[in-house]
């Protein structure tokens, strides 16, 4: 127990070769699986929330295996805030556009006025657009929660 505590204090775990290499191999597959869960939400369990959490967890794994600076290199903080805003805006914007083109709020079939395909297909497509927005928002919020709480808001070093 004492040895483990010493190693944690000297950050031997963070610089461990095995952890670094396995994280480097795992991260792309986690992100691919996250995208799959978002896109395949129409046909299997999943959707925006779950896929967004997976995408955010892949960057959190980067921050844990290397350090917080490395994850900031791959995903800058300003981009992160931008994606969070964009995700929330995609959802509310889609709902608002439905109302503006003459339907009810969140009634995706009204979007057929913009692009003339079958209104029922528009309902399916509208769910997909909305899920992408949810995924983006959840991904960036998950990541920024981890960044801010683990580094006390300084974004210099994590756990």
């Amino acid at each position, binding site marked *: 127990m004492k040895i483990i505590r010493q190693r944690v204090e000297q950050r031997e775990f963070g610089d461990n070769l095995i952890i670094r290499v396995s994280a480097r191999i795992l991260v792309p597959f986690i992100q691919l699986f996250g995208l799959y869960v978002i896109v395949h*939400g*129409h*046909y*299997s*369990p999943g*959707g*925006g*929330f779950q896929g967004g959490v997976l995408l955010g967890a892949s960057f959190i794994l980067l921050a844990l295996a290397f350090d917080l600076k490395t994850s900031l290199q791959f995903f800058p903080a300003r981009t992160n*805030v931008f994606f*969070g805003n964009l*995700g*929330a805006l995609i*959802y*509310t914007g889609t*709902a608002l556009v439905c109302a503006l083109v003459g339907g009810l*709020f*969140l009634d*995706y079939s009204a979007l057929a006025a913009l692009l003339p395909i079958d209104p*029922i*297909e528009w*309902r*399916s497509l*509208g*769910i997909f657009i*909305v*899920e992408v*927005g*949810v995924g983006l*928002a*959840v991904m*960036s*919020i998950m990541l*920024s*929660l981890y960044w*801010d*709480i683990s580094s*006390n*808001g*300084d*974004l210099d070093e994590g756990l």
Partner: protein
Amino acid sequence: MKALALFATLVTGAILLYGTQDFAPWGDPASPASTRVSAYYIENSVRETHVPNLVTAVLGDYRGYDTMFETVVIYCAGLAVICILRRTKE
């Protein structure tokens, strides 16, 4: 103080457990949740939305208002943490 907190927790838990006695049995077809909108979703959702996954259809279309504000709640939580904790360099 700790004894008081434990007492409050136990009383609240007992009230909640007492409330579960009035729940319908699990999977009961005559329960209120199964008799009103569930049948409509099961019969019509694939025809009306062309989404094979019933859960996604209900979550994203029929209950879209609920999901929208779930997203907004998560967004507000993240925004609050950023506003309170984050210190910029410049």
